[in-house]
């Protein structure tokens, strides 16, 4: 090596937004604490990232050409930057290994209370059924998220801004460099001061609002003035530079307000709009205004046509019948992955995603709120998140494969749509029949209906 002549030392540091984390099943993940972006690393990548500390010379023989190439890629992609010797890395950026498996994303319902009275609330918000944890206990959960290397959080509720200590909790998270990736809110309390406080935290969350149609929102939300407050908050959040997403619940009451909502949200500049039918959990189990899939499709088709006429202004999802990206039309490609019996039934999504209820209970998905599974799974008041994440019951839950579902469900096993439908969602199956391995009637109707193909044809200009 000395024959090659003297080589100038080369040092690098991670860029300030990037943290290096490790887990029992992953050698390293580079996580952006502002955006929530994750870059999983192989062993060689983690080795290089750990050396981006301002003190390790990359010209040392301890690095091979592949390591140099990896460093160059990290530099090119803005994960790291070259520096002079001795540049300091924020201690919070340094490699920190958690004893648990990878947890990328945690949804934390910080309160079960709400200032609206939504007819479809999946958490029984109007009754405050799940309450909220005391301040010191909630701060303890933040420490659990830190210890487990939770990378990003979605703060939800209830109405999260209703918590008196919301900003203290948010500040504790960002101080620990956990990304607040998303906040779901009804917008009533999201005034200009709140938006500024978010900016002051250096967080860049997606703000996710509910707007159940124009002229129909208040009826769904059970409070006069909720629609005006939501629209005002949406506009101010967009104007303040936040990424804004909106969900609209479609039923017999809100159906006439959906098409006008598209124009309003387009004008406001929202990034994505999701029209969805409420699910048969929580308050909605006793509702009588739900629409059939055919009725939902009849609402979605004119929305789709209007969205196309407006030039595809935002990302839209329409009741699972259609999903389209903003901008130029790109013909849909064959699915990258067709479901197989060996797949996890919930998919990879829930293998690294957790949901923490307002009472501290850890469940895989909010669709299981109110089911017997809710109490069968661990509470973070009893065990740490790192321990709970290894809980046998939770692992068994997350480890169920589609083959196990098919073994219980002859109809799905014989269905031609299985490759795309994947036997649906077990929470939906449970809500329908009390059997998680049963038939998911929502997915079944959706995938067997002609509506998906029909709306896709409209978008492609062939129908």
């Amino acid at each position, binding site marked *: 090596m000395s*024959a090659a002549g003297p080589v100038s030392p080369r040092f690098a540091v991670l860029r300030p937004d990037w943290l290096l984390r490790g887990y029992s099943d992953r050698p390293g993940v580079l996580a952006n604490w502002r955006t929530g972006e994750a870059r999983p690393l192989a*062993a*060689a990548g983690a080795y290089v990232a750990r050396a981006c500390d301002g003190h390790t010379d990359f010209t040392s*023989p301890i690095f091979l050409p592949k390591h140099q*190439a990896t460093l160059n890629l990290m530099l090119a992609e803005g994960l790291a930057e070259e520096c002079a010797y001795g540049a300091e890395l924020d201690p919070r950026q340094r490699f920190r290994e958690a004893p648990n498996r990878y947890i990328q994303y945690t949804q934390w319902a910080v309160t079960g209370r709400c200032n609206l009275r939504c007819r479809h609330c999946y958490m029984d918000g109007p009754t405050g059924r799940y309450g909220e944890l005391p301040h010191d206990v909630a701060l303890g959960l933040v420490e659990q998220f830190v210890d487990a290397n939770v990378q990003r959080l979605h703060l939800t509720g209830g109405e999260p801004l209703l918590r008196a200590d919301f900003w203290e909790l948010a500040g504790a998270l960002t101080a620990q460099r956990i990304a607040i990736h998303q906040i779901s809110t009804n917008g009533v309390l999201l005034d200009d001061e709140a938006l500024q406080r978010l900016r002051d935290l250096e967080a860049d969350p997606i703000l996710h609002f509910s707007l159940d149609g124009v002229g129909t929102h208040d009826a769904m939300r059970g409070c006069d003035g909720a629609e005006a407050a939501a629209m005002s908050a949406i506009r101010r959040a967009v104007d303040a530079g936040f990424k804004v*997403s909106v969900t609209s619940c479609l039923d017999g009451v809100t159906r006439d307000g959906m098409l006008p909502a598209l124009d309003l949200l387009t004008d406001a500049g929202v990034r994505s709009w999701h029209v969805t039918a409420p699910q048969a959990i929580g308050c909605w189990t006793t509702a009588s205004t739900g629409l059939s899939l055919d009725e939902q499709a009849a609402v979605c088709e004119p929305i789709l046509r209007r969205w196309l006429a407006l030039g595809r202004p935002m990302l839209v999802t329409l009741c699972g019948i259609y999903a389209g990206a903003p901008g130029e039309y790109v013909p849909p490609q064959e699915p990258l992955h067709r479901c197989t019996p060996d797949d996890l039934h919930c998919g990879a999504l829930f293998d690294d995603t957790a949901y923490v209820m307002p009472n501290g209970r850890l469940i895989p998905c909010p669709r299981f709120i109110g089911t017997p599974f809710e109490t069968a799974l661990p509470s973070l008041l009893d065990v740490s998140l790192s321990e709970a994440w290894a809980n046998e019951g939770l692992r068994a839950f997350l480890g169920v494969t589609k083959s196990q579902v098919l073994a219980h469900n002859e109809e799905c096993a014989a269905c031609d749509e299985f490759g795309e439908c994947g036997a649906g969602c077990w929470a939906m199956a449970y809500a329908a029949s009390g059997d998680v391995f049963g038939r998911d009637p929502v997915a079944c109707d959706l995938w067997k209906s002609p509506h998906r193909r029909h709306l896709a044809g409209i978008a492609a200009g062939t129908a």
Partner: protein
Amino acid sequence: MPIDDLKAFFTKLETDAALQEQARALQGSTDDERVAGLCALAADAGFTVTPEDLSSAAAGTAAAELDDESLRAVVGGGCEVTGDIAPLFGREFLGG
């Protein structure tokens, strides 16, 4: 095969934090001393690695043998999360 030992040593180095600390401590000396020190570290760890092996690896002539992983595999398969709008619950959003 020396190349097997070289590959195995670097595989261990990439994942062994204590070994990494020892290896990084070599950087203050001359090139020849660093190479000699690294060979000694490898020997202590049970691998036979020569200065010639390291020269070959540094020149890239042994790179293909050392590791066939693509950069994609080294740095991961791209963004799992774009930082932009992402669905909450798989296929659809919940109301609320």
